[in-house]
């Protein structure tokens, strides 16, 4: 027994002691450095999940509003703003549920809130109702004409411009100013409520423009004339000419 221990060189024995001390120290210190719950749910301190859910609600959610204000939410549900959450306009109201008298909603009546969504921006999707607030009854508050909980659609065709302002402004300075929208676009009534599902028609053939623009048209003597039989026969007219501003190049 003693025989093989005595054969081990002195430096190896010392090294073994050092290694043992290091391993022991590691085993003692490691649990102290690793926070409680680490590795229970994954490579993280599981108590962190409790920290993550300790945040206080600021937005109560529309379902909470319905419980007391079902008259308003019913009105909302029937109109264009049915997808709008109450707190988008009235502010975050989680506190209002706990203490309705202390934490009151805001009632925005200025002309600043509505244009956040409805001011004309070319980046906004086509068909979303937009106005140019400078030229749209610029001194009146929006709510003096529009009930925000049930905004009413504009009439067709005279008020196509309410949503399609860019097109109507272009047309206003073009030779086509006197042509009404519905002359070219047959518009289903449901286009007002579901603008994307029910789209207005477009002229489907060359003969439609040809009513005025063929060389033997009897309609309008001033309109520029072409020969439908030879003029770019593969294309519909509006694929090259912008009908709302045909002068444009």
């Amino acid at each position, binding site marked *: 027994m003693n025989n093989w221990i005595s054969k081990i060189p002195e430096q190896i024995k010392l090294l073994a002691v050092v290694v043992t001390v290091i391993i022991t120290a590691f085993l003692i210190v490691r649990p102290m450095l690793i926070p409680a719950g680490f590795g229970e749910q994954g490579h*993280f*301190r599981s108590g962190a999940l409790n*920290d993550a859910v300790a945040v206080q*609600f600021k937005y109560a959610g529309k379902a909470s509003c319905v419980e007391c204000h079902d008259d308003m939410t019913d009105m909302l549900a029937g109109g264009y703003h049915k997808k709008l959450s109450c707190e988008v306009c009235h502010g975050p109201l989680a506190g209002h549920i706990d203490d309705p008298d202390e934490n009151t909603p805001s009632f925005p009546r200025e002309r600043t809130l509505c244009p956040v969504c409805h001011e004309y921006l*070319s980046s*906004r*999707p086509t068909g979303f109702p937009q106005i140019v607030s400078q030229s749209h009854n610029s001194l009146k508050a929006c709510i003096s004409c529009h009930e925000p909980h049930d905004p009413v659609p504009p009439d067709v065709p005279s008020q196509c411009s309410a949503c399609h302002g860019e097109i109507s402004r272009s047309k206003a300075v073009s030779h086509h100013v006197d042509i009404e929208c519905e002359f070219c676009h047959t518009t289903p009534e449901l286009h007002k409520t579901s603008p994307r599902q029910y789209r207005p028609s477009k002229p489907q053939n060359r003969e439609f423009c040809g009513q005025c623009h063929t060389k033997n048209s009897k309609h309008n003597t001033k309109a520029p004339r072409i020969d439908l039989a030879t003029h770019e026969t593969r294309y519909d007219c509006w694929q090259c000419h912008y009908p709302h501003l045909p002068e444009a190049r």
Partner: protein
Amino acid sequence: MKNSITSKRRDVLKTMAGFAASLLVPKVVRGEKASAKPFDWADDSIHYDPHDHKWGMGVDIDKCIGCGRCANACKIENDVPKEPFFFRTWVERYEVHENGETTIDCPNGAVDGFEKKSGDDDVLRSFFVPKLCNHCENPPCVQVCPVGATYQSADGVVLVDADYCLGCRYCIQACPYGARFLHPVTRTAEKCTFCYHRIVRGEEPACVEACPTEARIFGELDQKASPLHRFKRMNHIGVLKPALNTEPKVFYANLDMEVK
């Protein structure tokens, strides 16, 4: 002859057993458990097991009107500092010009919406892109965190343990989407949590609640009856920077090739 063959087979079996055992070693060292038990919440009103969920978000670019109500609601709900450098979600306006150039602007994260830009006559096409943490399936931020303070919960949500974060900012550098920032007061990393405090209680994230056009859809990825599943079925879907193999869980419908 016969002996040598038997001993060879025994050697082979021993080696195989050794290899099989060595595969188990990392598991033992990392201390992972095969099946994690459901989480014990400090708040008794929460009945939520992270293992039963897999969250994701859908963003329909064709529906975004750039009102910035999402970014605004996010700042309020999560007490994000009001200075214009700190955002958990924000909206970018892309303008692709006729000369092929693309300009992107994002005034104050669109917290107050957008204003009309003058001189946009040469714009070929333009649209808004809401952005947030993509809650990647392979999150680079989690990989680089030296202390395990950034982690992925069992439901796929990437979160930050503020108590344990050193503020070294490795994760902020690692995130290819710029979705993280250092909180100016606590000096810890911050990011979108999918409003974790809301979703464990059955509510939607604040940005989804606030979106007027349902451009943002939140839901389960693994359940066919979820609105997100339908969103992915009905739209052409893209993700941001797919080549990085981060496997984002924020899915964009009608994503333009110019979006980075």
